[in-house]
């Protein structure tokens, strides 16, 4: 046996444990001096090496006075007493030499030391090798079973492995039996094609993957020598893995050794650090090596390292503080501020100041109402001297139809309210209307979800059935539900075990069983179906093995539902349960991104253990309070927008310019296509003309995607086509095409130069002087007054334009052109184009 079995304890081990305990009162899971800790797994008090192949990675950690911990594993001196018992290499990995008991001692250069009891048994025995537990991980770690190599569906050059080793039985078949066994040569294992290719002795497209001196190579040789056993049916299987430590604060350019422990179905444990795969989520922040060492760079922030072994995953979270003094913080308005500021203090990153009133007004009006503030709103806000005027502004915007319009625009795209031909207009208009009304009425979010997922009937009676027009298969339905409402991407699990998650095909199809009784019937309108719950016992077939799967929430036990019960209602029950781990978190994270331009988990619809939140405590608190509020979306918007964090200036201070994780300042973002389109119309005093809706209809109020085709503006600025449940379909990137369109598109130029344009009206206005008119122009464009220099610059420009005019007519024309130039210039500024 390779594994160190904890229970039952053989007599030698019991004696050893007694010895360990007799050494004195030790901390719960370590033996340490005051300044040094030797660790490898929570709760472990001794190192047990069982069998010739056993090994254990150790950690040496020095606690600091400020509560942080420093990894000394690779800088410390290791020794074993008695020395013939085992050996510890420079990376802190101990391997057996002979049976017996003793201790491992680590000493720092400063002379501090700590020790751990050590027991070695059966060091002379190589236990039988299990293919799934020991051989398959070699392929995974070395990239052989990756999606770009032998792990892809068709394999590579005739040799196929299951993706990331999720199907060991298939891998065994392909490796040992396929092609008449030509890949392995038991008579001379080192001449096996598998090894000669892997070591690049023979030409190998994938290059050299194995060193002949490596443990992996030796293990493969022994496996082939043993006759390529698959293992016994009752051999234990990995049930989970744990990484240690799970989180740690690292200094800039610091390092941390990780230890990965596999837990088996028979209760045994094994150090699999050398077999595990390590992958940081932000390669600009950290790198890892095959020995389980994480090295962070000189960038402060949060980094997560995904650890994968045999389809199981675990995550290490590293915090890299900047370490700057956080002397003053804006007043905490609510728990959002408390938790963000707590983290900022922890990482030593001072936030920017709170933004000024007018910046706030523009920002919050864009984010809640999807438009820039009116002149009246600016004036009223400027004159308002009350302390709570920002809070009242948020409430006013939330009560307006503009809030419903803007968020309906967002949800309509996510809910795939797509018109692919004219006959669907009735359905898309009705569905958009329903979404908008749900938001205007502040329908609780759990009910909103239930009425979509559980929709039945026809689009006239029940507009949310239009969702089912675009998600027509069980797969579409379950995947969109997971992505949209749970923030989970289950698509991979349809064909194979999710590579970054624990979701298997069984989980996938069990979840899909909730939609197994959805039936489409011909509706009364061409192009619109009637959705019916087909009476019957809900179940879906696992396409991998043909097994009938009962409906089950993710990570839950299957439900036995009566034939009369619409399983979608049970799904909605599960999703809206207060203790559901996904539903509320997914929504608050989605809305967080809306207001803060980056999700606490990002991308917002890819929430998984291996992509953790940058501020988990905040995500938990937001979700818990959202549930407590009764899934009140307006409460959530109000909570986010009223926080001091949201109201921080976008101007960085000397510490937070590179911050992308801690929200130490507001991250500016380009206006969405629709908001920008409307803002340009406001700026130009022009009216939208979309076919089939009243002239002047705002772009954020358009009911479906069909209007994109007639508007190059909306297309080039990335208005989504409502083709997926992913927010990523909306492009927020900047491009040359966008710049060119704003600079010189015929449409923009015509509106700019029309007789009814703002420029024309300002030029013709004789009631106000030029400075007053310029101030008005700046307020419309930037929601602020111009600075003195800006006014003077503009006046000078206008003066130059009109100076050479020969007569009044020429002067009038020049003045108008000057205003056109001014308007054109302002709407091509970043200040206009961005919410900041």
């Amino acid at each position, binding site marked *: 046996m390779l594994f160190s079995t904890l229970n039952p304890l053989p007599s030698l081990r019991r004696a050893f444990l007694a010895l360990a305990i007799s050494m004195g009162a030790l901390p719960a899971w370590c033996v340490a001096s005051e300044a040094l800790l030797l660790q490898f797994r929570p709760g472990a008090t001794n190192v047990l090496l069982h069998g010739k192949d056993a090994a254990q990675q150790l950690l040496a950690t020095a606690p600091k006075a400020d509560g942080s911990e420093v990894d000394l594993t690779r800088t410390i001196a290791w020794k074993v007493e008695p020395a013939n018992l085992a050996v510890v290499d420079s990376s802190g990995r101990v391997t057996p030499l002979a049976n017996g008991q003793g201790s491992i001692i680590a000493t720092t250069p400063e002379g501090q030391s700590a020790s751990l009891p050590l027991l070695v048994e059966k060091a002379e025995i190589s236990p039988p090798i299990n293919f799934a537990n020991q051989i398959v991980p070699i392929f995974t770690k070395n990239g052989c079973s990756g999606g770009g190599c032998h792990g892809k569906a068709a394999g590579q050059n005739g040799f196929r492995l299951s993706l990331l080793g999720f199907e060991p039985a298939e891998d065994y078949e392909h490796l040992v039996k396929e092609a008449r066994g030509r890949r392995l040569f038991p008579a001379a294992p080192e001449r096996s094609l598998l090894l000669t290719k892997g070591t690049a002795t023979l030409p190998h497209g994938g290059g050299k993957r194995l060193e002949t001196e490596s443990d992996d190579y030796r293990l493969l040789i022994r496996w082939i020598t043993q006759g390529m056993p698959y293992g016994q049916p009752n051999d234990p299987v990995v049930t989970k893995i744990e990484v240690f430590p799970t989180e740690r604060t690292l200094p800039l350019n610091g390092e941390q050794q990780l230890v990965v422990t596999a837990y088996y179905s028979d209760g045994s444990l094994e150090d699999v650090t050398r077999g595990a795969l390590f992958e940081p989520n932000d390669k600009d922040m950290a790198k890892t090596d095959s020995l389980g060492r994480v090295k962070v760079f000189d960038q402060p922030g949060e980094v997560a390292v995904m650890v994968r072994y045999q389809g199981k995953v675990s995550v290490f979270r590293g915090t890299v503080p900047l370490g700057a003094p956080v002397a003053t913080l804006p007043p905490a308005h609510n728990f959002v501020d408390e938790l963000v500021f707590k983290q900022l203090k922890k990482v030593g990153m001072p936030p920017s100041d709170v933004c000024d009133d007018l910046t706030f007004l523009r920002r919050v009006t864009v984010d809640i109402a999807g438009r820039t503030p009116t002149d009246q709103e600016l004036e009223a806000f400027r004159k308002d001297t009350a302390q709570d005027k920002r809070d009242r502004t948020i409430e006013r915007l939330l009560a307006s*139809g503009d809030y419903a319009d803007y968020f309906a625009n967002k949800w309509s795209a996510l809910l795939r309210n797509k018109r692919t031909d004219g*006959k669907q207009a009735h359905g898309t208009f009705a569905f958009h209307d329903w979404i908008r009304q749900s938001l205007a009425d502040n329908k609780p979010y759990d009910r909103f979800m*239930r009425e979509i997922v559980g929709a039945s009937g026809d689009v006239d009676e029940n507009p949310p059935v239009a969702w089912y027009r675009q998600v027509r298969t069980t797969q579409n339905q379950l995947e969109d539900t997971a992505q949209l409402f749970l923030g989970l991407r289950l698509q991979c699990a349809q064909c194979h075990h999710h590579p970054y998650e624990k979701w298997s095909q069984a989980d996938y199809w069990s979840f899909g069983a909730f939609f197994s009784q959805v039936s489409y019937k011909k509706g009364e309108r061409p192009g619109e179906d009637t959705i019916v719950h087909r*009476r019957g016992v809900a179940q879906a077939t696992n396409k991998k093995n043909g097994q009938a799967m009962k409906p089950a929430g993710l990570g839950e036990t299957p439900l036995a539902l009566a034939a009369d019960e*619409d399983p979608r209602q049970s799904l909605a029950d599960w999703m809206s349960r207060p203790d559901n781990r996904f539903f509320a978190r997914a929504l608050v994270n989605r809305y967080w991104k809306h207001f803060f331009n980056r999700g606490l988990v990002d991308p917002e619809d890819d929430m998984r253990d291996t992509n953790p939140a940058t501020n988990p405590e905040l995500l938990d608190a937001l979700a818990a309070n959202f549930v407590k509020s009764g899934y009140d979306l307006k409460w959530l918007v109000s909570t986010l927008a009223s926080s001091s964090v949201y109201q921080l200036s976008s101007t960085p201070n000397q510490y937070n310019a590179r911050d992308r994780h801690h929200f130490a300042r507001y991250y500016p973002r380009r206006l969405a296509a629709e908001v920008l389109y409307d803002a340009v119309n406001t700026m130009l005093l022009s009216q939208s003309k979309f076919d089939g809706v009243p002239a002047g209809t705002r772009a954020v109020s358009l009911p479906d995607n069909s209007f994109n085709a007639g508007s190059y503006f909306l297309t080039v600025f990335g208005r989504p086509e409502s083709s997926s449940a992913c927010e990523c379909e909306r492009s927020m990137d900047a491009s040359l095409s966008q710049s060119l369109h704003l600079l010189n598109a015929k449409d923009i130029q015509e509106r700019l130069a029309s007789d009814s344009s703002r420029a024309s009206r300002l030029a013709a206005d004789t009631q106000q002087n030029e400075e007053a008119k310029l101030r008005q122009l700046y307020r419309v464009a930037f929601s602020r007054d111009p600075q003195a220099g800006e006014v003077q610059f503009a006046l000078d420009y206008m003066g130059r334009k009109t100076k050479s005019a020969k007569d009044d007519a020429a002067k009038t024309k020049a003045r108008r052109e000057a205003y056109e130039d001014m308007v054109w210039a302002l709407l091509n500024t970043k200040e206009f184009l961005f919410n900041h």
Partner: protein
Amino acid sequence: MAKPLVKRVFIPPLIRGLFVLAWLLLATPIRAQLPTTRLASIFPPGLSPGTTNEIVVTGEFLDDSTGMLFSDHRLTATPKPGAVNTYIVTVPGDLKPGTVDLRIAGRFGASNPRALAIGDGPELIAPGSNTSLSNALDIPLNKVINGKAAAAADHWFHFSAKAGQPLIARVEAASLDSRLEPVLAFYSSDQRELGHSRRGLLELVPPTDGHYVLQLHDGTYKGGDEYTYRLSLSTGPHLEFAIPPALQIGATNHGFLFGRNLPGSQRSAVRGIEGGALEQLEVEIPGTPDAAPEEFLPRFGGYTWKSTSWRFTSINGLSDPLALGLTRGRVTGVATSAVVSVTLPCEQGGLFPHRKEHSGVRFDAKKGENWRVELLSDRLGFRTAAGMMLQRLKKSETGNETYTDVEEIRDAEKRFEDRDFNTVSRDISASLKIPEDGTYRLLVRDYYHSAEEGPQYPYLLRVVPDAPDFHLAVVLAIPPKSQDNDRRYHVLNPVLRPGETVALRVYVTRQNLDSDIEVLATNLPPGISSTPVRIASGQNKGTLLLTAAENATNVVGPMQILGRAQADKADLIRTARAASVLWPVGDYDEEPVTSRWVRQPVLSIAGTELAPITIAAESTSPLEVQAGTRVKVPLRIKKRLDFTGKFKLKPTGETALEKSKELEIDPGSTNAVAEIDLGETALGEGLHTLWLQGAATVKYRSFLDSLAVAEVDLNSATQAAKDAKPDDKKSAEERLKAAQERKKAADERAKARDIPLMIYTEPFVLKVIPAPKAPAKS
């Protein structure tokens, strides 16, 4: 109750003035069939009793109109002199609120109907200019505003209201044959949205005294003449439904009303279609409703269950009409979702259950009993989808009661899914045979609304002896397609030209009835004849032919079609209901074909032109023929227009004739002989009404009279121009130019066009007698 309509229409002299001709130039008819008068819209769509008002109509072939016809003869109308398509309509003061059908009688017969609402108070007209908030129209409460929606526009209204006074904004559109799908929104004077609805119904409880704004537009921002509406802001009662949703005729019915603004009501736990809790009021309703049964026109499936409309009168005024089924059995109901113990037969009303609730009836029954189970809900206009499960009670030794599923009851009735006549209902009508003695329960469920939240709807569950019965419906036969990808649907009217034979499609819904059904037209207008046909046992479709005599003149009269069957040695006689497509459809894959029942169906003869062709058997007497032999049927052919080549006719009239051979007709011939092989077709002994039918293309010309007028006019103008003195030269030339344009337009209109035509011969009767027995072998 309206009296049967029989009205002779006299077409005036052909020349009616140039203004008629001028209007004709504007018409662009879709000529996929012979022209008939078609009515598209009327405005205003509602009138007050005791008033005389103008109504403007739009449509096709409204030429030479002689007036309007109403399903209630007490209304009268005359064309407004000097105005095109405008009529002066008088509504008597004693007319009760409701809806009547209005038709135009014209050159090409009586048009399809359009609904005209009769209100209970003054009716105002919206000018249509209120398409911006700054031009919002001030409207009073409790008055009806007639208007039509403009395309890509909102319509805005201002009104004053008192705090706390519940108001119901209601838009009638579909019941007026309008295409409008109304969307309503309330706003405060500072433009805060206070409510929104896509159902034409919206409640407002004003938060303060003051001015408010109402917004109205079409669901997809369409508009035009066919998008009419009647809008009211009412403080009166509104009804959503009643439990039970049916009335026992001749009895006083006890039930519960659910709605808004119901004085004396209590708040219920039932949610209405707009999501809020409804008020509930216990009432007695007389089973002799004062509204005509025809007034309420439910969905097509409703022809299998008669219904009526009823209005609730309160101190706050009259409610909107409520659909109620009519039955002769005793009706009871509970105003909740519950399983009620009953004794069969029963007619029990209740509410569909929410999730995890049960609703239905529990009863004892004996093995072998046959019952008819009917659930009425969708057919009353509620958007429900019923499911039903029969369960049997089992008692354990300890007395524990459990139910086990016996049978899921599905709709066993054959319904029709023709595109223009879709009678598919989501209600249930099925036979139920009790498998063994015991206690049972019938549980009902609405598969559209079974969550915990959302609206609930009523149902009536009827379990009665499974007696034989049937229901009939008729619509006009569809003309042939002009080409393979022709996906149009037309508004078809039963208009005959002298010498023409047209076909009606007859549909039968049978309930435990296997016998033959004889279908016949009765009380036909003068000049129209019909021969009864038989819909054989097991069949559910048939064709009834109507023929106009060659010497028939213009006439409009009622169309009454009866079905007669023998069941349990007694005659069952049922009257057919007639349906009509509401609007022409350019592509039925793109837009729905919408139809409705018609009030007072009519037949008419367009006497201004003869049928393009008449084909009839030479003998009007039954042709006697021996079974198993061949019969030759000599035919007379009278062709009046040119046809594009030969065409084929096939004997038909009974299923047995499907194998019979086609007869090729040369339209240039004046006679032909059809041959039917009784051996091949296995036509049984007895009388058989048969005919031949087939598609042909005719080169149709019409408006030759108008062309003649234009020619006379042009000749006159030409001469006048020639003779004009210098001073009159200019005006004479202008007149000539105008006459030339009119002639050009008249030429265009009278130009021959290819029209696909379904040709039916006049029916003839075969009397099949037994073949002589072969002599016995010695």
